């Protein structure tokens, strides 16, 4: 059963598109799990409209959703990667567990090869429940 809830992710950090736990806007989406079911700095795999989606929670409780499919390794694994930050701006990223390419959690762009990106999804936390909304853009790789 697909749940429709209110709430749409908006950016908390500069240029980011994550959602902080306190925000609420109107949009339908798929209920994933409770926020605390995702450990800080890790991801889970969710089934969203038939697609495997990786949902991550960062150290400061932002949540992000990316396609789980690693375009380099061509396998559904990104949620199992290590989450951290890079650079002065503390860009949140996940490193693929297969060949270690890093993807910006906010945009899905590969930090090692900006020509490659994975799809991102709207995501929000509503009353402690993580909800993934629409896929944001089609990527051309």
């Amino acid at each position, binding site marked *: *059963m*697909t*749940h429709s809830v209110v709430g749409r992710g908006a950016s908390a950090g500069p240029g980011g598109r994550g959602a902080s736990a306190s925000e609420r806007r109107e949009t339908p989406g*798929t*209920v*994933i*799990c*409770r926020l605390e*079911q995702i*450990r*800080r*700095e*890790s991801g*889970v*795999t*969710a*089934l969203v*409209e*038939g*697609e*495997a989606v990786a*949902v991550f929670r*960062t*150290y400061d409780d932002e949540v992000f959703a990316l*396609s*789980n*499919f690693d375009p380099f*390794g*061509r*396998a*559904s*694994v990104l949620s*199992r*990667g*290590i*989450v*951290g*930050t*890079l*650079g002065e701006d*503390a860009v*949140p*990223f996940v*490193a693929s*567990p*297969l060949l*270690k390419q*890093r993807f910006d959690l906010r945009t899905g762009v590969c930090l090692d090869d900006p020509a490659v990106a994975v799809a991102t999804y709207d995501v929000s936390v509503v009353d402690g*429940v993580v909800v993934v909304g629409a896929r944001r853009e089609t990527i051309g790789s």
Partner: protein
Amino acid sequence: MSSGAPHLRKQLVVIGHGMVGHRFVQAAIERGLTETYDILVLGEEPRPAYDRVALTSFFDVGAEALSYLPTGEYDDPRVTLRLESEVTGLDREERTVSLADGTTHRFDELVLATGAAPFVPPVPGHDLGNVFVYRTIEDLEAIREASKGARAGAVIGGGLLGLEAANAMHQLGVQTHVVEMAPRLMAVQIDDAGGATLKRHIEELGLSVHTGVMTELIDGDADGNVSAIKFKDEDPIDLDMVIFSAGIRPRDALGRAAGLDIAERGGVLVDEQCRTSDEHVWAIGECAAPGGRMYGLVAPGYTMAEVVVDTLLGGTAGAFTGADMSTKLKLLGVDVASFGDAFGAAEDCLELVFADAVAGIYKKLVVAENATGGYELLGGILVGDASAYGVLRPLVGSGIELPENPEELILPAGRGAGIELGLPDDAQICSCNNVTKAEIVAAVSEGSTTRDGEGCDSPACVTKCTQAGATCGSCKVVVKKIVEDHFASVGKVVDTSLCEHFAMTRQELFDTIAVHGYNRFDDIVAGHGRGRGCDICKPTVASILASLLNHHVLDGANATLQDTNDAYLANLQKNGTYSVVPRIPGGEITPDKLIVIGEVARDYGLYTKITGGQRIDLFGARMEDLPAIWKRLVDAGMESGHAYGKSLRTVKSCVGSTWCRYGVQDSVGMAIQLELRYRGLRSPHKLKGGVSGCARECAEARSKDFGIIATDKGWNLYVCGNGGAIPSHAQLLAGDLDDETLIRYLDRFLMYYIRTADRLQRTSYWMDQIGGLDRIREVVVDDSLGLGSELEAAMDTHVDSYFDEWKATIEDPEKMARFVSFVNAPGTPDPNITFREERGQIQAANNDAPVSLGTTIPVGAPR
């Protein structure tokens, strides 16, 4: 036999099986001299050659560990070694040597390698009981015995060896007096001021130093044992033992009696080819006096041995033309170095001195003005801080002009640091291995590659490629400086940081974590790093925490630090599935367990393959099926195994003495014991072991990080080998060990590696970086850092706290929660996972784009 009937072959006799005699035989075998000569070695001591330089470590490691030839036999059947065979006569006419029992041996060529003997001055009482010299293992055995009942003792002689003997006596718990006739210690190497500094250091350790005193008489008690020592102008001292270390004398008696030319100050006189006045007699090592001078160090003796082998092979290139007598050592924990013209003997030279009495530092440089008005270095003395030795020694005799203010070279760092030394390209940087600056720069230059085809980009790698720094290590600082200068000159930044989050090496991070007792990544990165970490530092921290604490890798927040495979306790394969490798310790398995493995593979549709590590790999397991697979194994009395992670993989074995006609030890039993002991051990890189039951080496143990090969007396332990793209053979660390000692050394070795290696540095590279096999032997066998018991205790903690991490996972609902295909649809398998079939089994397949299930699949509600 390769070259004719034995009686037609020429006979070569070597007298003396000490350090140099042994080196001679080794070189003779390696370079093919035994193709034309049969070699007979006659040694007086009851045991084959051993490392006399490391004699003092006998007290810690015993005689076995020092031996160069534990089996008492060379690999080459054309060499015969006879021990306890003192040669008493040399007949040059007949070309024979004779032993005390009257047997004689004919020779075509004779090599004297009889070494030197301690000089015992004819002081009355020198022949009393409990008066010793310090030269052989037997001497040390007797000294140890006497020390048991002794309260006080004296070492007569305050030179290099005397201080070493004093150190030993002190360590044996005897109140120690050092008695030196000269006005200072180490009179040969250092000057008055240096000697005074050294004396203060030694007195602080609780030894008494008496310089400028003449021993008049040694007094004995009723049993004929020493009871006191009397001096010319000082009060007598009551004591129970005495060690003479008043210099050495070449053992040239045989040559003397046979009428060979003898040098004025002793030693068989030889020319540059080490030939004596008889063209068929050669002398090498401490018994020889090339050009009239004897050398009391081993390196010149080794050179002489090589020269004689070369000459006997018909070569003309080899010649002994003198040796570098520079010395650097740590005596009783005090750095002392002396090099070049240490006493300023040259005319018109100048001395530059820096002394800090409080810190106990004395440094002196001897310099001379050159033609252009600059200064060149002639020699120097360093006491208390010899760190500049590596930079200074190559300057001697190089013709290099010193910087404007040469005193900067010896000022303490901070005041004079950072001076530039314009070493010319042909300056010899590593004297042990004769490597020049140009060779070092060439090794790290653009386009150069190591033997594995990668760029050489660090001092450690230069040591590996050029050998510079691989022997005594004293040149390493300079090697590092040259590499850094070179990189700076080409605009390359040398960064030893682990990653952008931690500006330290793995070892520094290890020490930091251990010192602070951290157990959470958050505290570590907040206290010593920046940002929130990455896929490099997080697994590194995870591995360090696992080594230190040995908790479950998926406990609490640590789960998010784990690298790919550790994170799910299995090996991730290319299509997102995992492989499971049940542990089969030592490769031994019962038929019942084998059947269980087969059943699991069949029931879960897994691809099955036998690995090189004597295990069975089961591929294609979906993440959500892993716990159930583990449970089947646990229920059958097995556990899954580490084919993943930086940890012990397997200890491979051959069948050994339990079945094999050739086996001499139970290699399977030992392999099982070791695999069970070290399983789960997290390390900087993967670790592999092997145990072979005899010298045939069927387990290929020498291609492992630790390899054990059975001997008829016990086990030989080899370390730091690896297979893979650039194989290297493990090297012998210690021989003929009993089970207990073997495990003790292995505990120390593995923990030392875990603590000091860089991330992803395999043991062979680590060995080169820390200073070679000798360094490992010092720490592991000689326990020179005194770390032995700490390392063993750390390993005991690991062993005691080992648990089956797969079983612990299936018993913990919190950990189990991560093993689902989808959090919101746990019953739905990931549609992206695909297989194809080949040779009747599944194979992994990949898709070019994500595979969708469509939107109609129902998903579950949140809990």
